[in-house]
């Protein structure tokens, strides 16, 4: 099996600056291109606020961690290096091992094999309360028998901080999450969003260098969730603490992270910047899990082209070896071909069309029983000229978007 494109690079032990995180490792079987900054996206370091340019050891370093529960392997030789001040998301479906990995970093679970380092220190056998981490849980895990202020003060009291100082720091943390004056409230007097803010304040009050968040927003409704995503990012930029964020929501991961580690069946399928993960998925699983993509079987013609149902498509990125390949077709990357445009264009039959507000979604058939979805923003300029169901049309896919992955790993 081919190595994930970038993980071998970014998991390498060599110290590196943020901007070189994605430099190609050119492993022996690495036939893939390098994406220094992600061709269309931001450099990794651009989003991080602090600490990305010094050559200190990684803030967190998980080495070859394995974990089984009974006979099922939950984590299979996972390595992860996180730079100081980075916001890294562990993304994956349930059962992919992302929470177990977080638990290993937090110290709730001991790995069967492998080690965890914070900076230069090996913390594999260090109990959670001596690891100095701030943590936020999905269900907030606020202490119901304490007031808001007492909840936030908990990490300080546990560390024996003096009384006067506690009040100041609690006020500081509450103001950071915009809950000034809520200190005296009981937890059951707060809304879900407010509880999440208290949990955040409690995690940051002792200025930890490392903050772990386990699906912190999944209990909130969509609007509040999107709002809190921005707030957590802002908070991260202000505080600069290294943050590990677990989610199964790919859009949340894309929105918030410096880098995303996509987990599948206990392994890291890809660990790269959001733009790279989205545009250049390492395998069929990543392509399928992130964004709206159809994986269409194609035949390899040569290094830079594939055949899709009789049409030869040019690919800007090298086509991997192998006879089972899939073209990653994201619905928004397709567009209607102009008259006479033949390059990377292929004929389709429109099957159905759905109005979805900001865009229209069309299901089209490319022959051989294969269908694709094709999304077009609703706009007066194009709405009138859209093909009707049953009609023929021609779609084109830019060579840069014609990205091919080995097939057969989709769930």
């Amino acid at each position: 099996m081919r190595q994930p494109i970038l993980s071998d690079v970014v998991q390498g032990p060599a110290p590196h600056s943020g901007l070189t995180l994605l430099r190609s490792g050119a492993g022996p079987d690495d036939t893939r291109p390098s994406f220094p900054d992600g061709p269309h996206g931001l450099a990794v370091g651009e989003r991080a606020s602090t600490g990305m340019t010094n050559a200190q050891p990684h803030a967190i370093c998980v080495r070859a961690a394995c974990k089984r529960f009974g006979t099922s392997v939950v984590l299979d030789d996972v390595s992860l290096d996180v730079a100081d001040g980075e916001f890294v998301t562990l993304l994956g479906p349930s059962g992919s091992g992302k929470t177990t990995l977080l638990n290993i970093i937090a110290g709730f679970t001991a790995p069967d094999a492998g080690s965890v380092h914070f900076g230069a220190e090996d913390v594999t056998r260090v109990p959670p309360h001596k690891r100095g981490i701030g943590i936020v849980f999905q269900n907030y895990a606020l202490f119901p028998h304490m007031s808001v202020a007492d909840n936030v003060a908990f990490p300080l009291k546990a560390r024996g901080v003096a009384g006067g100082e506690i009040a100041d720091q609690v006020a500081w943390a509450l103001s950071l999450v915009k809950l000034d004056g809520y200190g005296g409230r009981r937890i059951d007097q707060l809304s879900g969003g407010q509880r999440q803010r208290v949990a955040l304040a409690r995690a940051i009050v002792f200025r930890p260098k490392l903050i772990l968040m386990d699906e912190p927003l999944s209990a909130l409704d969509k609007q509040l969730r999107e709002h809190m995503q921005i707030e957590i990012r802002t908070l991260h930029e202000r505080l600069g603490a290294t943050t590990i964020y677990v989610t199964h929501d790919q859009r949340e991961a894309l929105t918030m992270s410096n880098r995303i580690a996509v987990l599948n069946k206990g392994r890291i399928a890809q660990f790269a910047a959001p733009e790279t993960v989205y545009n250049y998925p390492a395998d069929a699983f990543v392509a399928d899990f992130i964004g709206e993509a159809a994986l269409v079987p194609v035949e390899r013609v040569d290094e830079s082209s594939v055949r899709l149902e009789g049409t030869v498509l040019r690919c800007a990125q090298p086509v991997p070896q192998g006879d089972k390949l899939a073209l990653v077709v994201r619905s928004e990357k397709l567009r209607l071909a102009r008259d006479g445009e033949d390059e990377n264009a292929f004929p389709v039959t429109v099957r159905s069309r759905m109005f979805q507000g900001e865009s229209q979604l069309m299901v089209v058939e490319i022959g051989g029983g294969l269908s694709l979805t094709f999304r077009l923003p609703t706009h007066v300029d194009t709405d009138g000229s859209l093909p009707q169901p049953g009609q023929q049309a021609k779609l084109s896919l830019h060579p840069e978007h014609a990205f091919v992955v080995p097939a057969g790993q989709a769930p």
Partner: protein
Amino acid sequence: MASERSGRAHVLLLLPGLLVVGALLLLPLLWLLALSFYDNGLSLVHYTRLFEDPSYAKSFLLTFQIAGAVTLTAVLLGYPLCYWMLGLSPTWQRVAFICVLIPFWTSLLVRTYAWLVLLQRRGLVNTTLQDLGVLSEPLALMYNATGTTIGMAHILLPFLVLPLFATMQGIDRDLLRAAAALGGSPRFVFWRVFFPLSLPGLTAGALLVFVLSIGYYVTPQLLGGGSTVMIGQLIQRNIELFSSWGAASAVSMVLLAMVMGVFLVMSRFLSLDRVFGAR
């Protein structure tokens, strides 16, 4: 309309229970109340005797002392037991639970006689300790307050364990994990998070044990001998020895008032509906 109808339906559902409670509990209680004020006409004589005869005060004091000792013993045995059970795997948890409950399903008399066998002068405890050379003279473990306390604490322990264990099980594990991750040492987490959150169950269990102890009869009768007379025995004596239903009723009424008083005081410190799991 709909709520009115469901209101009426609720009354119908409650009716059988209300009838049973009314006919079998409320009416007899009122009858007792009436009896306690009757002595060839309306009279307070049964109540004045409670204050004049020092044996009554002595018995009430002893009852509360024993109930307190039983509750304390049950708490000291039950809390560590529950905490230990919490850490077991589900299978062993079930086994431990059955072990706690088996005595609960055994006849009260059988269990009390079992203690008799264990605690008497030539009983298992004394002979073993003497054979081992720990004791030269057998301990007086029976026919006194010690025997009564041991027997009652054992018999009433499940009443403490059941609500306490349920409360402990209901404590969100994430709270403890959060507390640990945020820097709390195991001791700090226990006293600041686990123990306060287990308190409602502990109070519920302790209250049950205490209230049940106050009115206990069989065990003190068998293990206490003649010397420790608890209120329950006092009531029985009034009827059996003196055939004085009025006096027995008066003692019962005072006992009832005291139990109500305990609940009233407790309700000031915690909401009882939460204690008994209504919320």
